[in-house]
């Protein structure tokens, strides 16, 4: 980075906004690092790039921390060289910072839980992303997805007509599959027990997950609906660090549930969508909600436990392992329920090591799948995940996250692992016993 005293307008704005973004948690994390290096091996980027310190979490964190020190810390302000404090001056400085905070980190939070000091790098990395985004410095893919989410209400630019048309033909196919004219997807029904929100990827690339969810709701006899608008539970604000976008997107969905007077919002399997809607949206939007929110994983598990749907695990006759989405596991504590559900719906479950809150990122997290300029770097770092997958010997990797589905599919192809990627909803729907087609039943 340049040491020139002249500062670009963008750099000036970044510094002004930096001060406004700081809260006590963040300042604690910015101050507490002792450069012990214990976080180094926690990062999949480091493990896949041995000997390159620029991937080390503490190094990446220091690129943000040095700015903090230069402008807010006593020693850094007086003797910057002593603590490696440094400001940003030019647009080039911001571009270099962008390549680190977007390109070399998926905000997976694995370093955070491995830091002896409790430094939550992922949180202030996201804050730094937000600062750059506020001055228009971001990967192209992040800009496009954010624009779509602001303007069209979903991050993939799905038009209302396409959305409704897709739900319509999914409903038609479901009626045919079940031979039940009452099956289908109810739209905008008031006072339902469940309002179901999805990831636009399901409309665009994977409508079978919608069909599977609809089948499960129907078999469970659920009083449910999907909204015609405000249906996107994903939130690019999480990846871009833009709290305004995050709050607006979350509020759009909350408002829709309230408008429909739904009792519970069920969020389809998506790590960042679940985290954004369930755990972050209210904070970004500054709102409290009166209805319940849960992951569809929990909903499906409850249906089985309550006997509302019956399962034949022999229908899923391959070997399965489970990949924990970072957002689900490390930021929302959702790791036991998916395992419990998976072990009910299949007979050959093989644990992946390490797992749960210690699992490695699929390498597609933090919006990385939308940042094509960093794809080569991402796939190289995916070696760690690939080795993890391979060691399980499973034929199918199951995950509760659409982002992970894409990330895993990409790395499985790249490393020629020959594995299949599925979601729990696929397995539950496949194993669900439809009355007319009973082959075996659990006691």
């Amino acid at each position: 980075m340049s040491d020139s005293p002249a500062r670009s307008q963008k750099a000036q704005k970044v510094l002004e906004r930096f001060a406004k973004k700081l809260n006590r948690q963040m300042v604690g994390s910015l101050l507490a690092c002792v450069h012990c290096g214990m976080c180094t091996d926690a990062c999949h980027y480091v493990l896949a790039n041995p000997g390159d310190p620029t991937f080390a979490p503490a190094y990446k964190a220091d690129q943000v921390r040095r700015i903090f020190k230069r402008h807010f810390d006593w020693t850094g302000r007086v003797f910057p060289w002593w603590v490696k404090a440094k400001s940003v001056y030019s647009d080039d400085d911001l571009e270099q910072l962008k390549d680190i905070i977007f390109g070399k980190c998926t905000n997976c939070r694995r370093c955070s839980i491995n830091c002896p000091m409790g430094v939550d790098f992922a949180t202030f990395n996201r804050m730094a992303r937000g600062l750059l985004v506020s001055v228009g410095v971001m990967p192209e893919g992040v800009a496009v997805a954010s624009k779509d989410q602001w303007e069209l209400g979903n991050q993939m630019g799905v038009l209302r007509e396409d959305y409704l048309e897709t739900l319509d033909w999914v409903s038609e196919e479901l009626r045919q599959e079940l031979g039940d004219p009452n099956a289908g997807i109810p739209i905008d029904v008031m006072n339902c027990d469940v309002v179901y929100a999805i990831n636009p990827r399901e409309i665009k690339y994977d409508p079978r997950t919608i069909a599977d969810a609809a089948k499960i709701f129907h078999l469970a006899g659920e009083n449910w609906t999907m909204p015609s608008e405000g249906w996107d539970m994903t939130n690019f604000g999480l990846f871009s660090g833009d709290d305004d976008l995050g709050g607006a997107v979350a509020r759009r969905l909350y408002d829709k549930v309230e408008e429909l007077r739904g009792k519970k919002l069920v969020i389809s399997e998506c790590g960042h969508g679940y985290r954004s809607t369930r755990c972050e949206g209210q904070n970004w939007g500054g709102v409290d909600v009166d209805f319940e929110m849960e992951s569809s994983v929990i909903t499906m598990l409850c249906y089985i436990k309550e006997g509302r749907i019956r399962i034949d695990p022999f229908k899923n006759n391959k070997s399965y392992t489970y990949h924990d989405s970072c957002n689900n596991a490390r930021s929302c504590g959702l790791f036991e329920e998916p395992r419990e559900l998976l072990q009910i719906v299949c007979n050959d479950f093989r644990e992946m090591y390490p797992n749960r809150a210690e699992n490695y990122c699929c390498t597609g997290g933090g919006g990385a799948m939308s940042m094509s300029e960093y794809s080569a770097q991402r796939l190289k770092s995916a070696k760690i995940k690939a080795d993890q997958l391979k060691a399980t010997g499973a034929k199918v990797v199951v995950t509760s996250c659409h982002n992970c589905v894409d990330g895993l599919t990409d790395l499985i192809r790249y490393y020629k692992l020959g594995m299949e990627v599925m979601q729990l909803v696929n397995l539950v729907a496949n194993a669900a016993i439809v009355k007319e087609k009973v082959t075996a039943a659990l006691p």
Partner: protein
Amino acid sequence: MSGLLHFSEHTLQEAALIFMAIVYTLRLRWLLRFKAGRERQAPTGLPETSKARGIIYSWANIAMPWAMESTRTKVFVYVQFVVFHLGVAASIALSFIIPYVPKLLELSFFVRIFQIIIGTAFLVGILRIIRRVKSVYLRAISAPDDYFSLALLTSWFFLAFLSVPNSTAGGEWHLIAFFLLTAFFLIYVPFSKISHYLYYPFARYYFGKTMGHRGVYPIKHFPEIRR
């Protein structure tokens, strides 16, 4: 006891302690001026997790090497950490024992224990300096303050080791040097990385609170690593 040694043990230490207390108070005031973030959402995760449990777990984390992969898989580094910080605690204690309860140092058992702890901490300090210089990762993240603080602490351990018997038979220089360095520490620490212990409770408190509320802390499963 010479006038210089008496001054170093008492007046200088007391002045340095007052200075440190003032600076720390200002530092804490500054930190508390930042607004604490609030989590509006209902808790997630298993019922045995909560904000309070997360905070306690987070604080206790440092004493549970099995709780983090980073400490679980680097046992030797963790042991070094423990010894180093025991050495710090013993040396701080020594800086109070010598001027205020010197009788304790007439017990040879007590002296031996202190010398073992501080002497081992000194060796760990040397190892840590070597590690910081040798590791490409640590070099990349180290600032002059990191090297200086570590070298200073290691030197302090050395002087503390010599000062434990509180004997002036061979001269006072080691005691004077120990107390001069202690005073320098008290003044320098708030401006260096060594002040991390002031921020540690904050960083861990908020991280534990967040992770507890989100159902991650306390972690129940410590997965075997089969890499």
